[in-house]
């Protein structure tokens, strides 16, 4: 992975010092909370319902075991013994004291980490395909470009006060989008043009939140050397013309929709012609320099080995885990392993300090000392010898992380919701815990197959409910929590936005409703090969409305 040089190190340590000064000035009364707020936000420090929350950037989700041990240490020393992995491939601490945060930033800087721009109206953490570098269907590893973008976006002087936050995702696999690039402010897909040259397809204006929109292509093929200057121009057009009068209409997607993609493109190209200089071109040598940090590890030359043998073996728990959580690797004899952070009884994405330490050890022992945070709030050990899967599974079970539910209905994406979040309207975590408990039967999970359930506690959609095959959105009705049920969303190449099934459901109705939807699917699917999403797309909503509301009549179902 990328290693800081003196430049990177100075930038991050000076930032930590600067924040220490800002905290001192806040505590002494030199600056007000209103003035401090944007400063702390640009450093990832929110204030939630019960405490501050520090969001630490995990650039493109990649962590070394050394970093994971540091994260464990921070959880133990300055927080309450756990951290929470987020849908932005980051980690959050829910209980830091303001007075400790400068020291936490120093600790992070010592392992080349930071909390820069994990909040605020600026370019946020760059996210990527969590199987980057090892996917069989990948055209090119996106991580070098993510790192180049990380540096470009860090303290970009012109874009520190954008109309609203800005998220960029990159994938190097044209055939399968695991980074939800169509739901980002900018999505980048590495593609090959007719002449066989590599470049980027640039999508713009996607997003979730209050107004879910699928991004559109602003440029079909952008040569690599123009990568940064073109993105500069997109940001500049947005910075100058994005709405600033209404924060709910301030994202770039609203600007793109208002102008139309053609006019937006014209403005970007016009700015680009006026602003690009030869100096801004990204030299091949720089791409090569950064790419070298992501060179494949020292794989052994192993015979191809098919894990099916393990799946069909006597140990059913291991078999299910291999079947559901192990992913094919481009190198023979190796596999990628999804560590499900959806343990029964624990909030999705939460990992304790002792688990983090243990995971760091497993990464060292089984996977060249690295792991990846996924936007589905799981972890991936990317380079595990297939022959060592049973040993790894045994170790994971020992630390309660051996759940065999990747991509299944209990692998739920959940935002923190009203248990922690200042913006939430309803709780999400208790709901996901209830769903996991209700469906805690491996045969049922396997029978239902790949279904994504995504829960957000408010319209801001941190739980990605719009792109859940089943999406749940918490709303507030005069101080009481209610939930809307949505069906049909998908974040990938077949992107679609889920639609509301019917009237909002009370807290004691919603899990029953999910069960009714799943049971109906099992009875009406054409075969066990037809995925839930495909059934919904084939039959529409009526059978599910009948299942949940007893009627497909819009008045009965009360579509809102």
């Amino acid at each position, binding site marked *: 992975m990328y290693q800081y040089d003196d430049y990177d190190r100075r930038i991050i340590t000076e930032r930590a010092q600067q924040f220490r000064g800002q905290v001192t000035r*806040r*505590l*002494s*009364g030199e600056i*007000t*909370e209103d003035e401090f707020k944007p400063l702390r936000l640009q450093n990832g420090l929110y*204030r*939630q*319902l*019960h*405490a*501050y929350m520090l969001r630490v950037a995990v650039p493109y989700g990649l962590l070394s075991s050394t970093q994971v041990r540091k994260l464990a240490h921070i959880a133990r020393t300055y927080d*309450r*013994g*756990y951290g929470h992995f987020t849908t932005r491939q980051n980690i959050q601490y829910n*209980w830091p*004291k*303001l*007075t400790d945060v400068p020291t936490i930033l120093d600790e992070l800087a010592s392992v080349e980490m930071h909390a820069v721009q994990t909040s605020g109206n600026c370019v946020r953490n760059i996210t990527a395909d969590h199987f980057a570098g090892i996917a069989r269907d990948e055209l090119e590893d996106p991580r070098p470009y993510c790192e180049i973008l990380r540096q470009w976006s860090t303290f970009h002087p012109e874009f520190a006060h954008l109309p609203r936050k800005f998220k960029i995702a990159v994938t190097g696999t044209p055939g399968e989008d695991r980074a939800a690039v169509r739901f980002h402010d900018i999505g980048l897909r590495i593609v090959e043009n007719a002449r066989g040259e590599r470049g980027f397809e640039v999508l713009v204006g996607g997003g979730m939140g209050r107004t879910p929109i699928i991004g559109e292509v602003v440029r079909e093929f952008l040569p690599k050397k123009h990568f940064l200057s073109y993105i500069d121009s997109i940001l500049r057009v947005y910075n100058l013309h994005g709405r600033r009068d209404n924060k709910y209409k301030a994202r770039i997607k609203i600007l793109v929709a208002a102008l139309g993609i053609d006019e937006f493109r014209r403005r970007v190209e016009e700015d680009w012609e006026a602003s690009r200089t030869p100096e801004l071109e990204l030299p091949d040598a720089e791409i090569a320099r950064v790419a070298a940090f992501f060179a494949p590890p020292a794989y052994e030359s192993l015979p191809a080995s098919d894990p099916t043998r393990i799946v069909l073996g006597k140990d059913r728990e291991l078999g299910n885990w291999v079947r559901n959580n192990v992913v094919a690797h481009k190198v023979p004899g190796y596999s990628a392993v999804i560590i499900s952070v959806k343990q029964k*009884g624990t*909030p999705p994405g*939460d990992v*304790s300090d002792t688990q983090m330490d243990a995971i760091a050890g497993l990464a060292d022992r089984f996977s060249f000392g690295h792991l990846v945070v996924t936007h589905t709030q799981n972890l991936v050990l990317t380079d595990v010898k297939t022959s060592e899967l049973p040993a790894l599974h045994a170790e994971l079970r020992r630390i309660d992380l051996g759940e065999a539910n990747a991509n299944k209905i209990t692998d739920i994406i959940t935002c923190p919701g*009203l*248990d*922690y979040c200042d913006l*939430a309207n*309803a*709780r999400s*975590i*208790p709901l996901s*815990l209830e769903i996991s408990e209700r469906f805690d039967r491996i045969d049922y999970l396997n029978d239902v197959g790949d279904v994504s359930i995504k829960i957000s506690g408010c319209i801001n959609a941190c739980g990605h409910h719009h792109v859940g095959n089943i999406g749940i959105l918490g709303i*507030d009705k005069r*101080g*009481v*929590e209610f939930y809307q049920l949505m069906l049909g969303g998908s974040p990938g190449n077949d992107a679609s936005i889920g639609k509301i099934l019917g009237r909002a459901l009370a807290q004691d109705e919603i899990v029953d409703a999910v069960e009714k939807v799943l049971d109906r699917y099992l009875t009406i699917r054409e075969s066990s090969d037809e995925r839930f999403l495909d059934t919904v797309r084939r039959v529409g909503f009526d059978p599910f409305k009948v299942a949940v509301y007893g009627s497909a009549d819009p008045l009965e179902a009360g579509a809102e």
Partner: protein
Amino acid sequence: MFWVVTANFTEDGAVAYRRSDGTWARALAEAGLLDSEAIAKELATTATQREQREISDAYPIQIDVENGVILAQSARERIRANGPTIRVRRPD
């Protein structure tokens, strides 16, 4: 109908409630009851301006009193008063 003034402590972000004597408590039970929303709003605004170093972002909330116990009305304020409804690893 009663109101209390709530905020968050600057130092650790914890929930704060204004006592009758103007100091800040960590428990809703210690909050000073106000019978006028206008006064509660006024106190919140003044506190936000003048007591920045100790607390931030004060605002009034309406509460119920049952058998002498102060109860927040909305789900949000109940969770603020009592903490997350799910288990936290280490309560501290």
